[in-house]
């Protein structure tokens, strides 16, 4: 099974992943369709933490705490892709899943996939419909800097998936010089901002 891995040292917080995700999950399939649409669903969130940036989304854990906690039978594992997928028709937005998700990957709102007038839980679905067409997840395709990588996950990583995000982090091989420079600049900008505040 392939999963999305993160090399956060390469994330430049451009948010292309967020945009691509929103478009891929919008019924219009177009950027223009998102404008002013409150039902737009964005399953990845680039979180800025000081000078670092991190694209936050579902890690499709195995075993998945959310799947076991769901009392509505609304979360299942897609047999083809291994993705943990929610059924918006069954979801009652009771938040049992969010209560146990270590990654804060589950949010609630009225989405286009929900029945009219209903809030549902939503999260990354690994673009399993795109995968079935032979494509890669929209966020990975959109990531220009190589921070998001879609690749085979070894069995031992799956075993550890629930307990830590660390198994999804890449970057042991170091970072290219340009990224180092970029990170250094961000670090300094952040430090300056912080000094200005105090």
């Amino acid at each position: 099974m392939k999963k999305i891995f993160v090399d956060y040292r390469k994330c430049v917080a451009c948010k292309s992943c967020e945009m691509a995700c929103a478009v891929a999950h919008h019924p219009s399939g177009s950027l223009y369709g998102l404008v002013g649409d409150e039902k737009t669903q964005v399953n990845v969130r680039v979180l800025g933490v000081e000078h670092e940036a991190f694209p936050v989304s579902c890690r499709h854990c195995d075993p998945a705490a959310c799947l076991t906690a769901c009392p509505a039978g609304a979360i299942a594992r897609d047999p083809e892709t291994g993705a943990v997928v929610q059924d918006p028709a069954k979801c009652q937005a009771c938040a049992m899943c969010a209560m146990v998700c270590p990654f804060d990957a589950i949010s609630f709102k009225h989405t286009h996939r929900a029945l009219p007038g209903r809030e549902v839980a939503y999260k990354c679905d690994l673009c399993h419909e795109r995968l079935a067409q032979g494509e890669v997840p929209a966020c990975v395709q959109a990531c220009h800097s190589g921070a998001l990588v879609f690749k085979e996950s070894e069995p031992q990583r799956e075993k550890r998936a629930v307990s830590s995000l660390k198994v999804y982090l890449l970057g042991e091989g170091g970072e290219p010089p340009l990224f180092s420079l970029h990170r250094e600049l961000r670090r300094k900008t952040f430090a300056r901002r912080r000094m200005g505040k105090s």
Partner: protein
Amino acid sequence: MKIVTVGTGMAAAEFVQQLRLGGFEDEIVMLSDEPHTPYSPCVIPYLLAGEPPNNVFWKGRDFYERYRVTAHLNDKVVEIDREQAQLRSASGRVENYDKLFFAAGSRSWFPRPEWLDIEGVFGFKTLSDMQGIDRYIGEQAVQQAVVIGGGFIGLDAALALRHRGLQVSLVHCHDRLLERMTDADGGRFATDKLMQRSGIAFHMSAEVDSLDSRNGQLHSVRLQGGTAIEAPLLIIATGFKPNSAILNGGEGGIAVGDDLLADPRVLVAGDVAVTRHAIDGPAGVYATAPNAIAQARVAAANILGGNERYAGSLNANVLRKHLDFPVVSAGLFEGEAVTFTNDRLFRRVYLQDGRIHGYILVGDTRLAGYIYNLYVSREPVAAHIAGVLADMRGESYYRSLMDLAPAAISC
């Protein structure tokens, strides 16, 4: 090996599904005093709020056929002979078993059972209860309802009816709601929010004295002190009792170890099981869906030849239905309290030996999963938990992973 389940609730349904998915080919018989396909008790209140009726059948409407189960419904088990390994039902049916999965669930406890004889008075536990209430509201064009009980189930009922558009009054004997799920301050915060925003009329520290009926139908509910609330519908959600008497003669549940066995041939799970707490709480009946599902999975894995141990139950729960301010809590509210609160949020953890012993989070679920995992993993948190509680963006977990110092608390 012939397997018989007493009950068709969450534990039994999960158990049977896991057995069949795991390749179990022998005979499975399920018995229940209810007439339904397995349904989710957590979903049925939504039925009253106008959800599609099929959504309650969380494993599908065709459960019995799909998993090749012989189901004897509407037939209460009245006797279990553990020596002979057989049971008898109210209709006189006798079933032998090689393994019995005892998941008989629990039933509503009513302070005044005779009130249920009045038309328009209901419990709030089973799918039949919900269908009865739904039909009654439709037929009588009910506009007002009273709910007794301000715990999780009572609020669930009141919020569902409110969502449907009824005027709802809730009578609670305590001065705050959800008093088992929260401590005094957290409960007060949640109660105030519910009073301001739920549209329900709350009668706190109040008890129902009597019911007035006309032609056998409920007309009004009279509180101690004389207040009368006119309503043709009353829902009583004042607690539940495990259906354990049939197995052990008592009503306090059935104590089992980590193998979930009451004896070598009887497995116990769900609302009747007394299990140990996964962290440090006392043993007890921990009647939530995730516990029941986890128990069912361990039981099924062991039948399939595995050697799994049940890791213990958690009393973690969340109330979010029809609310924009979820209430999340777990553990015991004892020890050193660390609190963050503003006009929107109340977050508190109780620490013991520097580790989370219990917590209450009202207002959002942003931190819920992170705190839950800190709690379950027994990680020492005393040094930075105050900063974590003040986290508005859900960055604490990622901060710890990127080797950044915990956020300073901004004033």
